[in-house]
């Protein structure tokens, strides 16, 4: 199965992503969901603004997934990242990995989110009560 990569302004649809990667041979699904928190670094967050370098982000995510697939012999993966303005409680990223056995699903899902944060050109501007700033890392 081709991995699913979604970069979108729209709210992320967890159910649709899980549905899309599910396969009768898979016994375990791990979903990671990143959510906009109401606070960060001691500040009260008002909302977030995500910006993406879309063509490159798509390519980097494809590469991360390919690495994970090779390393854990997994097949069914979806990565969705939202951009634009996100309110508290909304999902910025959803990663779904379905595998025959759960251990690989946990490892691959964690690898994908950790690597995505480091290497995919997506930026986050935190708009807090006392001003706004691009968040590094």
């Amino acid at each position, binding site marked *: 199965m081709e991995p699913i990569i979604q970069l979108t302004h729209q709210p992320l649809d967890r159910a649709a992503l899980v549905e899309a990667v599910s396969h009768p041979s898979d016994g375990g699904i791990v979903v990671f969901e*990143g*959510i*906009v*928190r109401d606070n960060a670094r001691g500040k009260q967050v008002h909302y977030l603004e*995500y*910006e*993406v*370098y879309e*063509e*490159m*982000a798509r*390519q980097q995510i494809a590469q991360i997934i390919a690495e994970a697939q090779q390393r854990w012999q997994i097949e069914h993966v979806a990565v969705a*990242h939202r951009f634009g303005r996100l309110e508290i409680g909304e999902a*910025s*990223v959803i990663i779904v990995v379905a595998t025959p056995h759960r251990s690989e699903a946990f490892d691959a899902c964690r690898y994908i*989110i950790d690597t*995505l*944060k*480091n*290497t*995919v*050109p*997506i*930026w*986050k*501007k935190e708009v807090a009560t006392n001003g706004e700033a*691009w*968040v*590094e*890392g």
Partner: protein
Amino acid sequence: MKIKIRYFASLRDIVEQSEEWLTVPDNAYIADVRTLLLERYPRLQPIMDRSVNAVNHSYVPAETELHDGDEVVFIPPTGGGC
């Protein structure tokens, strides 16, 4: 030759545009473009020091030679995910 620069996040805020075309000498290196941009926008210095180079959607070292029409982006620290 001409290359296209795109600006994202804090770089875009500083230069106040999303992209521009630059004329550079044939066979210029990424490092040369850095120098050129810092002359034009000195306020980019702190963030450029923490940015890495991308050409045509791939990360590349500063010694990368450029070609006509290349898309160059200096990538500030990312904050995707959550």
